[in-house]
């Protein structure tokens, strides 16, 4: 580990006030559904936290997850925490390149064996290992090596958590999520394309403070951030309940801020913290800026039938099917009808009246 400074020291050096730091702690605690009494404990633990070794592996990804964390114009507490935990190995952020970079990774793995946090963004191709290699090492081999000494694995972003874009149909590279390959180590899926920065630091803060893993949902995502759907927390929800929808991006409904369900909003299926935490330091989030949620934190959201199609609307060729079926139905129905008439005519023709006397004669 290159530095022995505590997180508190790093933050102070970078001009973060005590007040700003405590505000961050309070916000993080409330996001993680911790009682207020734990805020001082969180602050104390974070302040004293020494830099854990983090190895960040990037596989089939677009670097958007890293961009999401680092692209703030003012240094945020989130950004500084990331800087502090800093990274023994991260393609985009490290200065070293070539052999030196790979040595840094190997050294960090050796020195902190069993203790480092492994962050992975991007999916792993299994169809042909040559689709994605780093320094001649395939993604799968590098992941398996790095997992051996990891205390925990964080799958950062939807590609790592669920396969994401590389895994979208027809999945040409045979991309799989990190969780599908990692066995015997805790995997935390921080999905989103990209994930909300505070979710990333929130998970890291919990690891640093309590040394425990957060409670996870069915998809291995921290419940504190992925416990509620966008739909249930959306400030436009009252319009949905009233049946007031924007029909296009430039109609009266859109200007009045009505629900974007008809424009394909995937809020009902999506679990993420956007609606509550917003983006760009609380400035806005997709629905607030007038665009439907794409569902980027959910598995296979690329294959959900079009970003601008509501999830519940059939993708079947309704008009064509109904027309063919109607033609077929009329033909078949007419045939059956004629058959019925013939049967009736035949029955009428062959009718043999029976008198009461005849009936009484039968034994």
């Amino acid at each position: 580990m290159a530095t022995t400074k505590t997180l508190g020291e790093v933050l102070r050096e970078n001009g973060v006030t005590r007040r700003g730091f405590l505000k961050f702690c309070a916000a993080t605690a409330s996001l993680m559904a911790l009682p207020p009494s734990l805020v001082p404990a969180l602050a104390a633990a974070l302040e004293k936290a020494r830099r854990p070794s983090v190895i960040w592996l990037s596989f089939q990804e677009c670097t958007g997850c890293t961009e999401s964390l680092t692209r703030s114009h003012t240094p945020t507490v989130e950004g500084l925490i990331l800087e502090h935990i800093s990274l023994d190995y991260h393609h985009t952020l490290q200065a070293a390149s070539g052999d030196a970079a790979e040595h840094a990774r190997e050294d960090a793995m050796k020195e902190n064996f069993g203790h480092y946090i492994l962050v992975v963004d991007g999916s792993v191709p299994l169809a042909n290992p040559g689709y994605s290699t780093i320094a001649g090492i395939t993604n799968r081999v590098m992941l398996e090596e790095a997992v051996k000494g990891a205390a925990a694995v964080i799958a950062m972003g939807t590609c790592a958590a669920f396969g994401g874009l590389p895994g979208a149909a027809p999945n040409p590279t045979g991309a799989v999520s990190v969780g599908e390959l990692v066995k015997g180590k805790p995997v935390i899926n921080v999905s989103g394309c990209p994930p909300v920065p505070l979710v990333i630091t929130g998970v890291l803060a919990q690891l640093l403070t309590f040394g425990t893993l957060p409670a996870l949902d069915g998809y291995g995502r921290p419940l504190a951030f992925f416990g509620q759907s966008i739909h249930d927390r959306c400030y436009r929800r009252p319009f949905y309940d009233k049946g007031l929808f924007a029909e296009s991006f430039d109609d009266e409904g859109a200007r009045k801020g009505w629900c974007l369900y008809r424009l394909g909003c995937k809020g009902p299926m999506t679990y993420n913290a956007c609606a509550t935490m917003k983006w760009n330091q609380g400035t806005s989030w997709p629905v607030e800026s007038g665009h439907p949620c794409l569902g980027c934190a959910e598995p296979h959201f690329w294959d959900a039938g079009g970003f601008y199609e509501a999830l519940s609307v059939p993708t079947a060729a309704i008009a064509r099917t109904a027309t063919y079926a109607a033609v077929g139905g009329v033909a078949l129905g007419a045939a059956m009808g004629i058959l019925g008439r013939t049967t009736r005519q035949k029955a009428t023709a062959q009718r043999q009246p029976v008198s009461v006397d005849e009936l009484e004669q039968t034994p």
Partner: protein
Amino acid sequence: MINPMDFLAWVRGPAFDIALAVFVVGMLVRLLEIFLLGRRPNYAQARGGEWGPGLRTMVSRSLADPGTFKRAPFNVIVGWIWHVGFLIALLLFVPHIELVKKTLGIGWPGLPNPVVDAASAIAIVALVAMLIHRVQHPVMRFLSTFEDYLTWTLTLLPLLTGYLAYHRLINPYPLALGLHILSIELLLIAFPFTKLTHAVTAFIARWYNGAIFGRKGVRA
């Protein structure tokens, strides 16, 4: 490997095509069979019109006659409750109206979600009560066939899966939604070939009834 999203895609796509085709073909065959068979010509002089009484009876028969109500008050009251609850959930739930608007281009105002929620919960309870009543009543149990239990199940499933999806009691959501749509597709497929057809044919039968009596100058 089938994941919830693939399942939903299949349900929204090919499965919906199949269900729709079966429903349309089946219903047209059933209806044409009925209409083409026609009725016996009536040579007597008409004492009244057919259309007025026919149309009136289509509506008036919705209310049970006093005799029926006296014999089976439970069936009439609980039957009414669940039919109304089902129709509210089907026709006045905003996302359902949106679906119709998107596919057929026609829409109408809906009810607030909590009202629809309550209506579907009441409809589910009423359906369960109907089943208990059917099983406990010796005559009804004797008369019940496999088809009765099948149609009961196929009617309950859309209500139940819709309720579970709305309250997020099945996860993940694409699975919940997929199951809900699938349950409706099963209902559509069974609709023309079971007593579920009554939703259409009951009104035809009522019209015939009213028209026959109307022609005779009698109030049906």
